[in-house]
């Protein structure tokens, strides 16, 4: 535990979710981990899993990256939108006795990304402490993360 610096600066959404959940649960939280994706398939060794699960994104800023770098690293180009093939988030169940990931009242605590509210000046807003939300819930987490079209918000929950 006292070995000095760790391994690296690189983290993905799973790492961020794990850090937030374990640190919050240390304070008495009951956070769980869940994946936003379009289908139940989690076998990414299959050739079409990524394509089946992916959903397109609004403009976001990933942890430690600029907005531009974030979007290009997530596949944005002239021909295609940025997307996640899945996205792992820590969540607090609305009903702790019967936790159900798709409950729109669940609270999401995403430390991996921030939502971009103004692309020109780079203003962002937190993606933590928001209700998961329904497809059309403008104050919900899903509405902030995924694009408002057939490839986005409706596909980021199976």
């Amino acid at each position, binding site marked *: 535990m006292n070995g000095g610096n760790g391994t690296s600066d690189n983290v993905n959404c799973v790492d*961020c979710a794990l850090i937030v959940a374990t640190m*919050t649960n240390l*304070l008495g*939280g009951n956070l769980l981990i869940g994946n936003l994706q379009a289908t139940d398939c989690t076998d990414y060794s299959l050739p079409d899993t990524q394509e089946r699960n992916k959903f397109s994104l609004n403009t976001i800023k990933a942890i*430690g990256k600029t907005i531009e770098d974030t979007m290009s690293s997530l596949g944005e180009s002239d021909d295609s939108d940025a997307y996640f093939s899945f996205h792992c988030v*820590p969540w607090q169940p609305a009903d702790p006795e019967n936790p159900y990931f798709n409950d729109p009242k669940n609270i999401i*605590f995403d430390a991996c990304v*921030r939502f971009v509210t103004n692309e020109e000046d780079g203003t962002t807003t937190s993606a933590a402490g928001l209700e998961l939300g329904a497809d059309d819930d403008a104050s919900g987490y899903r509405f902030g993360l995924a694009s408002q079209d057939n490839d986005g918000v409706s596909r980021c929950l199976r």
Partner: protein
Amino acid sequence: MLKGAILHSIMSETILPEAEIEVVQLQSIDFSYQDSDHTTSSLLFYPFSPSWIPRNFSYAAYSIEDTKAAIADRGLSIWARFLSEEFKGKDIYVRAVPITPEKAISEETVFPVFIGSEYAKDVFGEVEYKRLSIGLTGQSIIDNIDSNIPMKIINSKFAEAGVGVFDVILNWQYQELTSGESAPLDDKWKNIRTSKHRIFLVLSVPKSPWTDRPFRNIYNGDFTKSPIWTEALSISCEWARGAKNIRQAGRKIADKLNESSIFEYSENSDYSDDTPPEKLQKITLDVDYKMMCLFL
């Protein structure tokens, strides 16, 4: 001037003339003891124990939710042990009043930053006076057996403070019993010594994967535990400082992590091949090291 001089003396731990210190000695303080639990005393954590001995400092951690009833019912306890040659076979009063330190309690803490505030002493409360007996061996006794003496912490304000971590110094004092008095007199207290403590406040008892006490596996009889790490406790309590509920705490932690410039996003994490405990340990090392750099 006087206040500054007193605090300087306290921090350097040479507050009193040796002769006065020898009259009553404070030997140990336990913030959790034997069958006590997190509703009436400190949580347990690793690698330290919530115990104090002379020339050291200690940690203690409390669940705000789980200690509510004890605070209301004056049931929050610590256990202290005393030695006195002078008062063998006699009774004395002892108590401890809190002081907010002006700098970090130790450079050797795992999170060596100053964590104090104007209200730190008011959050912890005070150790209520207690009449205790000194046995013929000079040790504090209960029923003629050398014992740690349970003492009440009163006037704590854990719920008002919310999540946090702060340092507090307890100034221990004693008073001789005088005939005709049924309670100690305000102007008769004499100093014993001070003890230094870092106090963590969490919202409720930690949940999975954490547990503050080992439990016996019903199938093979082994003790299993996933102890609370002091490093993680330091960072969580600092990042979520002031949170009054889980939603606030989770948001504070997520935002601090995102804004701290500790990590950079990559689809291919360097931690992803590890099992969860190993992954968390690596992450904790990174967070701990880099948080210290940020604050120093």
